[in-house]
């Protein structure tokens, strides 16, 4: 076998091995998207109920709660960015980080300092590599977050919000979150949302006028208990959506990698065939040439 042909065959073998890996990753991600979507759906009754309740208290009572009132002179803002732990998901993590950069620039143009809170190893590495300051970070659960994880993250955010930003370096006046919204299997978009001070998101299920609720023990206490949970539920929902988006992005990236491997194998096969054919042609012409030479040599000797 000729040298050229051997090189083509070796490259084909390695591309085929890579294709098997990307194909397997594509199938795994595809099966996990469904699970992640089910989790998003399973968490929505709680989130909807909480949203209803929070909007009821916030709109009906005249309580001035620290979590709902905007600071007159905001000094610092916290930005939570949710990224992936692992790569191989196309532009998924980078899109979220970029959205974060835009938000940070916007906040800074308003004269605010920004504290970064990161979820996911990709975001952490991005910040570390550029020597950016990370206030707090969490990793290891981006593809399968649980409520306990969301609680851990939101507790530290709420603590930062409650702390006085004017005196405490970790205290913040505003809380923003960046996550990747799972719109469909093919569309996922990074979203920036303000969580605190409260902008109550009207849930789709809210219809008609709010009933006049009685509060037990009182509106302030109810709000005290509700708001941290509302934040936790928002963070949890963002994490679940991001997880579903991560799987979808990875599936798409791996599908195009598999397709590219297919194309590569096809063109390599063509090249290998041409090399093999060229080799045969060369051998034939060598034999014919040799036979001619022999024939003319023996003709000359007679």
């Amino acid at each position, binding site marked *: 076998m000729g040298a050229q042909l051997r090189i083509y065959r070796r490259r084909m073998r390695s591309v085929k091995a890579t294709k098997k890996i990307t194909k397997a990753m594509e199938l795994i991600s595809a099966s996990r998207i469904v699970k992640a979507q089910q989790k998003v759906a399973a968490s929505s009754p709680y989130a909807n109920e909480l949203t209803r309740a929070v909007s009821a208290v916030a709109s009906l009572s005249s309580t001035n709660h620290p979590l709902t009132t905007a600071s007159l002179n905001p000094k610092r803002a916290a930005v939570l960015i949710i990224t992936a732990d692992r790569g191989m998901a196309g532009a998924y993590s980078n899109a979220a980080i970029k959205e974060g950069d835009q938000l940070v620039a916007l906040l800074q143009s308003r004269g605010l300092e920004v504290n970064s809170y990161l979820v996911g190893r990709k975001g952490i590495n991005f910040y570390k590599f550029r020597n950016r300051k990370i206030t707090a970070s969490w990793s290891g659960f981006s593809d399968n977050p649980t409520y306990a994880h*969301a609680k851990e993250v939101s507790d530290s955010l709420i603590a930062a919000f409650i702390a006085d930003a004017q005196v405490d370096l970790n205290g913040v006046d505003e809380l923003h979150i960046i996550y990747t919204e799972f719109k469909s299997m093919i569309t996922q978009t990074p979203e920036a949302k303000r969580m605190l001070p409260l902008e109550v998101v009207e849930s789709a299920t809210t219809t008609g006028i709010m*009933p006049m609720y009685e509060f*037990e023990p009182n509106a302030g*206490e109810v709000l005290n*208990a509700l708001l941290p949970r509302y934040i936790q539920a928002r963070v949890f929902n963002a994490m679940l959506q991001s997880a579903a988006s991560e799987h979808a992005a990875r599936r798409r990236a791996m599908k195009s990698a598999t397709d590219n491997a297919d194309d590569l194998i096809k063109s390599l096969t063509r090249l290998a065939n041409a090399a093999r054919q060229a080799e045969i042609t060369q051998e034939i012409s060598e034999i014919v040439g040799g036979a001619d030479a022999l024939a003319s040599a023996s003709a000359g000797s007679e």
Partner: protein
Amino acid sequence: MSDTLLKVEVVTPEKRVWSGEATMVSARTLDGDLGILLNHTPLLGVLTDGTVSIKASDGSVNDFVINGGFISVSNNRVSILGESAIN
């Protein structure tokens, strides 16, 4: 939806634990024990960690141990939300 029964849901962040129709729900809020029957006034209450019992329409009694929860009642719909709910 029946007009003679309460529609009750017990939900946690991770899933809907129980839903169905009931004749009575009793729970303990920060202010004390609370029983909810049909046509209760709209209410939002913070629950203490403890048991919520639901008397279902078929007569069975379902107890849930709720941790970090609250209750909301409006238009004969009762929602019990908890960080965890164990049957």
